[in-house]
């Protein structure tokens, strides 16, 4: 068991990071901490992807010196996926931060439970 984890240490670290991020996103009450958790979670997945694409001792698939054999290069697809994932993650973070700003301006707190209680007492009772 332990040997397996040591051999696949990147993957193990990635899954641990994912778990930390996931629980933070789920259980933290502070909105900013939730967002940090979300970013940790995504980073975990990206680490997993990146470590899968990397093959020890090989180089990025840019053909120099006429070496064309695929044996010399790593798999570039996961890197592309990581890039796409980062773009998605950045845009999601941006929109969540803007929502956080909006909530903070209205309720003057970042504590989600408190905001929830405050919104219950709101007078607009439609």
């Amino acid at each position: 068991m332990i040997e397996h984890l040591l051999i696949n240490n990147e993957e193990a670290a990635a899954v641990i990071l994912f778990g930390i991020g996931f629980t933070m996103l789920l259980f933290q009450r502070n909105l900013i901490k939730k967002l940090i958790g979300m970013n940790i979670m995504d980073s975990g997945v990206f680490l997993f992807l990146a470590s899968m694409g990397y093959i020890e001792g090989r180089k990025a698939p840019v053909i120099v010196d006429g070496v064309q054999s695929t044996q010399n290069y790593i798999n570039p697809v996961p890197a592309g996926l990581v890039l796409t994932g980062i773009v998605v993650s950045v845009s999601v973070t941006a929109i969540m931060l803007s929502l956080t700003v909006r909530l903070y301006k209205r309720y003057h707190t970042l504590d989600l439970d408190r905001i929830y209680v405050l919104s219950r007492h709101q007078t607009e009772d439609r």
Partner: protein
Amino acid sequence: MNFIANFPLFTIVLSLFSGVLCFMLKGKTARWYTVFYEVFLIVLVLSVLGYTLHTGTSFTYPMGEFPAPWGNEIRAGVLEALMAAAFLVILLCSVLAGARFIDLDLDNSKVNLYYSLVNLMTAALMALVWTNDLFTGYVFLEILTLTSCGVLIVREIGRTTLAAVRYMILNLLGSGLFLLGVVLLYDLTGHLLMVPMQQAVAELSRDSTVLPVLTITAGILTIGLSIKSGLFPFHFWMPDTYGWATPTSAALLSSLVSKAYIFLLLKIYYRVFGFEVIERMPVRNVLLVLGVCGIIVGSLQAIYANNLNHMVALSSAAQIGYIYMGIGLGGLAGYTAALFHMLAHALTKSALFLTTPRLSEVSGGSLLFKKLQGSGLKDKRAGAFFTVNALSMIGIPVFAGFSSKLQFGLAAVGSLSWKKIVVVMVALAISSMLNAIYFIRTTVRIYALPEEEPDDRQQAVAPESAGNGGKPGKNSGVYSAAAEEDPAGNGAAQEDPAGVESVPGKVRDMYVVPMLVLTGGNVFLGLFSWVIVELIHTGLGMFGV
């Protein structure tokens, strides 16, 4: 390649383009552009449906002409075309019927942004329906999440922002899990396209040490998508999210967005794991149990809701439970029932969410049950549409709800397992009763005469003008315009969206036509369910590679 093969791609790319275009148009122009654009899309998708039915096969469209294991593909079969067409029709009707509330809830300068979001949402929905590549699925899943958050927060009251934040947090958990699942699958199979993936999965599943890993992956994907679509333990965001949003947004989110996630899940089951492999996994039994729990809990919570929109939203939780119950039953009949109910629920729920704001509008802007007394008499059209769709929700014959319940019953009997038959039948019986309790109670209430007539009227007028401080006179003026034109609603059937001339000083109110389309679709599903079932069967037949 046939020219029609390009159409699925057009629906995605043109929608993205329209999203940008609406960003630059003025509000009203953007609305009409969106309406005509959606009609155009419906024509495109229907021609794809006709083409696939005619040829009897599905087709894949390789983007950039890269051959199969590489590149990115779009796949169109009968089922995808049917879903896309239904999604587009419902989207168009929701936008048309809710247009007045979009104008009311949004700043004038921001109306075009709403239509921009609607177009982007169309692109994401279409991409999720057509895609043959899991990672593309993930990207458009996130786009769908972002746009649905966008249409939620356009109404700037504190509660929608809070609801949007909670909705987003749950959705992000779901997206994270989905991404992890996709990455794990990619790790296991080395592919992202569904067809080579399925071959690899079929090979891997013969190895008994790898099967548990596959099961875990399927579980992660399932949990991710069921969080996003609001299956039982994760349905608590629904009342606030749907309850306070602009009517069109509520209709779109409850009827289309959650269905798109479920459709993606079905696609993953069928096209990535394959029918036989998924039957060997315990994932479906969990879904069956959670679905049944969702049906009962959602209905019970809906009974105790004191707010009309919350009630309708919680009944949505129950209906999502039905769909997952169908997936949990498995087999051709189970999936057919789930898909049929997706259509039935999408039609009914969007119609319900489009009637409730009008009922609340004539009761002083309140959605509380005690204030809604007699609102069906004040706004006869909204009351009638509410009643019809409530009956469909309960499962009265002639309407879609009945047919889908029949499908679930048949699927349960077809599963030939006593436990499943008993569980499903009991769930159907109990939930129909609970549905009847809260929907009939509400229908009776909206038609009951107000207790103190004059007092109630005063109440009805006062808060309306008070709540209108920001935009003086707009709300009440609009409503009177709506009431003046054709109160009976029977002559309105000929109203063509394009044919009505705008009268100065009056806001054009497209309510009856889209609602008639939705309700007509509902009755069609109820009376001619075999047509749709036949289509779904053909589509599912094309699904298995």
